[in-house]
């Protein structure tokens, strides 16, 4: 079954699941015409018997005076302050009923955003939605923008509820405008110092707290200069300086932080597996090797999950937090053993003996094992390949051992391929009336699969594959077109053959230190079908 047919069948089957009357329900809910969706303007008219109404109203006011005073005080008491920083910087003060008491802009852009908005006494979610719609329409929020939301309130539960509310509201508005931006939260319960800094620079207390937090972690940063930066630029500086943002804020995510981290590792893990020719433990599997049970691990919050190398050994660096302790682990990604702390041991590549496990116990009962070096991707995955000639020799030797007459081999070809997460060579040849296709692992040289086909059967697929230019050629075409010379460091090369398309192509993706490159290259002719260069986020200059 082709992928296209699979798609069609799944689509058909899912459509059959949908109840027949669903569109009728939708249609019944829609307004009868587009005009009905326009806002209705309420026109207040003078009523007759004004004097009577006024008299009644006066009595009500008198009666309500006392109660009203108390209610007034309660209504106008600030329960929380919410700062929104993108580049526009806006502060909302709300009461305990989540009604906006005031909306203030800290900069000109913030004023432009608030221009024309009547937010006083509106519900918080209405106000935030209006602010973000205004930001989106005026171009202040776009893809990859960073949004810092700071809630100043001493009630942690309320802060958490408001955070969820804000996430939902902001997320909906961004989705309406097809914007993919990151929302980062921080909660402040004490902000006197931040307020002073904020007042000095005319920025929100939230942004001030973020900057002061950065400077506390990296003292050589200049807080006064950072005050002028957009939040996305601040996050960029933090990344450049190696500041873990989890030490400053909580990430907003629809997915758990663990999920994001594990997914971002996938390509690195796949490359490591290619290099080593072995399957690594997945991040989820590695959790078990911490020694804690599943229930405990389901409740911790992960703040770090990275793949690094200790010599030739891939290692998961994990940091997570429970209610009681911070835990750090460095776990062998192959066999799950704990890595040694502080002492470096060179691995004997032939014996691959694991190091002794060592860990220290934290005063509060937690355990820690640390050994961290950043994982650097290289192009070594290609250098480790056995090569086409070797792949051919391995395949023919297998047939010779099986008793075939390898002196009369015909139509011998070899094609590099990317199959199920592994780089392989497909060696095809004919002996007598049988066509063989050996799949040979590109790094280990192991024969993964052998297929035999009588020559009378059509071998269109194999013939077609033999017409392809190969991954190496596709990658080279992309690198040459991008004018990448030997002096440029290229990392994370990814190349995948899309055969299911009408016009098969290689998708090639790679990174330099300043850009991400993507290519589609015709698999038969090598023509470049599509090319895209995306500059990577570069921290602003002038930072001392």
């Amino acid at each position, binding site marked *: *079954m*082709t*992928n296209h*047919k*699979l*798609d*069609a*069948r*799944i*689509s*058909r*089957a*899912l*459509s*059959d*699941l*949908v*109840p*027949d009357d*669903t*569109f009728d*329900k*939708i*249609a019944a*809910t*829609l307004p009868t*015409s*587009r005009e009905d*969706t326009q806002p209705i303007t309420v026109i207040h008219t003078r009523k007759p018997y004004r004097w009577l109404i006024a008299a009644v109203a006066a009595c009500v006011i008198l009666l309500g005076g006392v109660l009203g005073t108390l209610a007034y005080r309660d209504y106008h008491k600030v329960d929380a302050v919410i700062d929104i920083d993108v580049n526009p910087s806006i502060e909302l003060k709300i009461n305990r009923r989540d009604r906006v008491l005031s909306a203030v802009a800290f900069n000109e852009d913030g004023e432009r955003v608030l221009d024309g908005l009547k937010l006083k006494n509106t519900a918080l979610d209405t106000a935030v939605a209006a602010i973000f719609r205004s930001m989106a329409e005026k171009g202040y929020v776009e893809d990859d923008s960073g949004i810092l939301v700071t809630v100043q309130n001493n009630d942690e539960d309320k802060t958490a509820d408001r955070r*969820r509310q804000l996430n*939902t509201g902001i*997320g*909906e508005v961004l*989705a*309406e*405008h*097809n914007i*993919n931006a990151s929302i980062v939260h921080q909660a402040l319960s004490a902000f006197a110092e931040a307020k002073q800094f904020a007042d000095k620079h005319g920025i929100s207390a939230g942004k001030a707290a973020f900057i002061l937090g950065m400077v506390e972690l990296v003292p050589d940063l200049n807080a006064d200069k950072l005050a002028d930066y957009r939040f996305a630029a601040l996050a960029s500086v933090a990344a450049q300086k190696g500041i873990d943002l989890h030490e400053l804020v909580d990430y907003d995510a*629809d*997915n*758990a932080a663990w999920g*994001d981290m594990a*997914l*971002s590792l*996938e*390509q690195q893990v*796949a490359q490591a597996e290619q290099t080593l020719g072995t399957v690594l433990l997945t991040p989820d599997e590695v959790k078990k090797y911490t020694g804690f049970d599943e229930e405990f691990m389901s409740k911790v919050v992960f703040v770090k999950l990275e793949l690094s190398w200790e010599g030739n050994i891939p290692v998961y660096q994990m940091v997570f937090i429970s209610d009681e302790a911070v835990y750090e682990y460095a776990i062998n990604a192959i066999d799950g053993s704990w890595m040694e702390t502080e002492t470096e041991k060179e691995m004997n590549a032939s014996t691959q003996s694991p190091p002794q496990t060592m860990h220290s116990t934290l005063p509060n009962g937690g355990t820690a094992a640390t050994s961290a070096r950043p994982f650097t991707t290289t192009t070594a995955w290609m250098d480790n390949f056995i090569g086409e000639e070797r792949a051919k020799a391995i395949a023919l030797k297998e047939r010779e051992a099986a008793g075939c007459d390898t002196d009369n081999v015909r139509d011998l070809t070899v094609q590099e391929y990317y199959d*199920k*997460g592994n780089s392989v060579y497909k060696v095809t040849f004919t002996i007598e009336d049988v066509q063989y296709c050996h799949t040979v692992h590109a790094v280990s040289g192991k024969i993964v699969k052998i297929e035999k086909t009588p020559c009378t059967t059509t071998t269109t697929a194999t013939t077609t594959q033999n017409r392809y230019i190969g991954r190496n050629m596709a990658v080279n075409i992309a690198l040459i077109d991008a004018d990448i010379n030997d002096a440029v460091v290229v990392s994370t090369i*990814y190349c*995948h053959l899309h055969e299911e398309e009408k016009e098969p192509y290689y*998708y090639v*993706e790679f990174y330099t230190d300043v850009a991400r490159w993507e290519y589609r290259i015709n698999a038969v002719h090598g023509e470049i079908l599509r090319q895209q260069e995306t500059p990577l986020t570069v921290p602003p200059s002038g930072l001392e």
Partner: protein
Amino acid sequence: MTPTVERPVDDALIRRIADGDMEALRTLYDSVRGSVYGFALSIVKNAHDADDVLQETVLKVYANAGNYRPQGKPLGWIFTIARNLAMDKVRHNGRTVPTDERSLAVDLHTVADADDRILLRELLATLTDEERQILILHTVNGIKHREIAAVLGLPLGTVLSKYHRAVKRLKDTVKEETDYDEP
């Protein structure tokens, strides 16, 4: 059952919906109903809520078609709306964002073709949530892998590799069930 529509959803269709064209809305609905429903189902885990999400998605598209910025990616926009609505539904029901559950119990008697029932049963039972979502989004005529990655918040390479793994697993499982191999 109304047949699915092969015509892809494009910016022009969204513009027509913004102008109040009900036929355009029906075309959109017919194009994406199965995949939005299936996608929502993989998040909310029950048919009733999945139907609600489908309805709310279409209504939201209708209400916001005028705000949509033409970027040639209407499907990504639509499925992002669906995803947010599904997530809201889960939170509203008092659950945390659901962790992976391989098996989804759904009544398949409305699926006309017996082999399609087997395929759908395996899709719902065998794959992880993410693989299921990627596969379902991939069935949408005209959606690109990049848009799928954006909707799900995944790296493009991850979408590609998971898609191919999921397809392989599904095909192998279905092949065992039906004992035939289409070309």
